[in-house]
């Protein structure tokens, strides 16, 4: 394979999401071993909101929520903070390589409202549950924290409500089916594509150089940056979308992304287990109503917004203006939750136990329970797919008969 072929196949064309999600599962496992924390983004978004309030003269550092998640220093002093900068660098590099950055303006004002409202609901729900699609799901389940299972199940239910809601006529912009006699010419300026690719390489190499330099100064920070770049490349190149994994089960019967995520979690869980057995402390959160209420809100919010907390990151740098609003909504929603946390936490979260499946069922028992639950999730997805298409074909036949008459 020569350079041009390599470039086209791996740096320009999109990657298949199944191996990419499994790779994200493996990388997130190493990330836990290397940094001692799990791959997560919304906690840091909440801290951004806290810093903004500090700039405005408020003192959010005294709020209970920031006592829990910390608000010291700047993003550059925190593992989550530099990891997210690495992620953005990876997303930008990947989008530049493929000349996939373009200012995409929403076609209708309703999209802005739905982006902001969905983003706020999802941001609030995610932090209420102490995580998002990552910490309370993709990287939360492999920590053997029961709250992540509550959150995942509630997110599925919330996304069903979200799917029904976002297909209401209110949100449908008129689309015209045009009669045509020729394909529309597609062209991109080759000069611009080449320049963008080079710029992408500059961003990528600078970020990697920063990560390597940091490795020598503070190894955990360096690994966080380098893993962040990897996560960013994976989510943009493969367009990994947790929202579509849930939403499209209900809308179009597509199970591709949902199955990929189950496999990604399954690959990660055994690796996290090995680290925990070697003495690394797992991240366990309260398994209270907060995880369920948060999951319901999150599931509804991500579908309304069209993307979750990792989804808006790569779409925002691709120039999808819609997702700038989703990101802003996420930060606002997460900050709102931090603000009212002290009033609602005892009733919803802190009066409940943090349940570690490896303690409840013993190490091997907890591992087995996790894999059995993952097997049930996979079976449920496959059964749902079969049911969806049987029902669809049945209604299509009935409609066809009516038409014939």
């Amino acid at each position: 394979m020569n350079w041009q072929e390599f470039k086209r196949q791996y740096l320009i064309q999109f990657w298949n999401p199944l191996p990419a999600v499994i790779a994200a599962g493996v990388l997130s496992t190493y990330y836990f071993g290397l940094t001692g924390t799990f791959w997560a983004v919304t906690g840091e978004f909440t801290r951004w909101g806290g810093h903004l309030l500090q700039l405005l003269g408020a003192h959010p550092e005294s709020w209970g929520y920031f006592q829990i998640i910390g608000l010291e220093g700047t993003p550059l002093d925190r593992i989550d903070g530099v990891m997210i900068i690495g992620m953005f660098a990876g997303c930008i590099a990947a989008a530049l390589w493929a000349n996939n950055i373009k200012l995409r303006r929403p076609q209708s004002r309703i999209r802005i409202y739905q982006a902001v409202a969905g983003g706020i609901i999802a941001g609030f729900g995610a932090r209420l549950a102490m995580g998002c699609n990552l910490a309370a799901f993709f990287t939360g389940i492999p920590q053997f924290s029961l709250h992540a299972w509550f959150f995942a199940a509630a997110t599925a239910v919330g996304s069903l409500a979200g799917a029904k809601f976002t297909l209401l006529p209110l949100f449908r912009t008129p689309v015209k089916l045009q009669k045509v006699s020729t394909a529309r010419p597609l062209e991109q300026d080759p000069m611009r594509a080449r320049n963008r690719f080079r710029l992408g390489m500059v961003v990528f190499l600078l970020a990697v150089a920063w990560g390597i330099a940091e490795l020598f100064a503070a190894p955990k920070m360096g690994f966080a940056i380098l893993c962040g770049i990897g996560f960013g490349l994976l989510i943009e190149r493969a367009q990994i979308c947790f929202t579509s994994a849930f939403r499209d089960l209900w809308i179009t019967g597509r199970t591709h992304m949902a199955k990929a995520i189950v496999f990604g979690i399954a690959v990660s869980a055994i690796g996290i287990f090995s680290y925990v057995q070697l003495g690394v402390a797992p991240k366990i959160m309260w398994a209270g109503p907060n995880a369920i209420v948060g999951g319901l809100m999150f599931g509804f919010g991500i579908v309304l917004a069209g993307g979750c907390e990792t989804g808006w990151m790569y779409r925002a740098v691709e120039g999808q203006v819609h997702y700038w609003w989703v990101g802003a909504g996420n930060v606002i929603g997460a900050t709102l939750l931090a603000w009212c946390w002290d009033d609602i936490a005892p009733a919803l979260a802190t009066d409940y136990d943090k349940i570690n499946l490896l303690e409840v069922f013993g190490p091997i028992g907890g591992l087995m329970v996790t894999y059995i639950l993952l097997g049930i999730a996979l079976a449920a997805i496959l059964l749902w797919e079969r049911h969806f298409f049987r029902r669809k074909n049945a209604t299509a036949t009935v409609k066809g008969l009516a038409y014939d008459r």
Partner: protein
Amino acid sequence: MTDEPVVVPDYRLDMLGEPCPYPAVATLEAMPRLQPGEVLEVISDCPQSINNIPIDARNHGYTVLTIQQEGPTIRYLIRR
């Protein structure tokens, strides 16, 4: 990638600027309006559509003829 498509579409859906899931939903809604054998051209600049439109079209019984990615724009040609 830069090859011009040999297939000539009969209809076009211009979904530029629309985020997911709307391009995939509009595609699935448009397909039954075609006569069997006719071809729909979907133009989308939602990168996520690469994981939606082709799989949904196949799952719902249509044939995906070509997928062309030119920078931020993707063209799908789908036959009923």
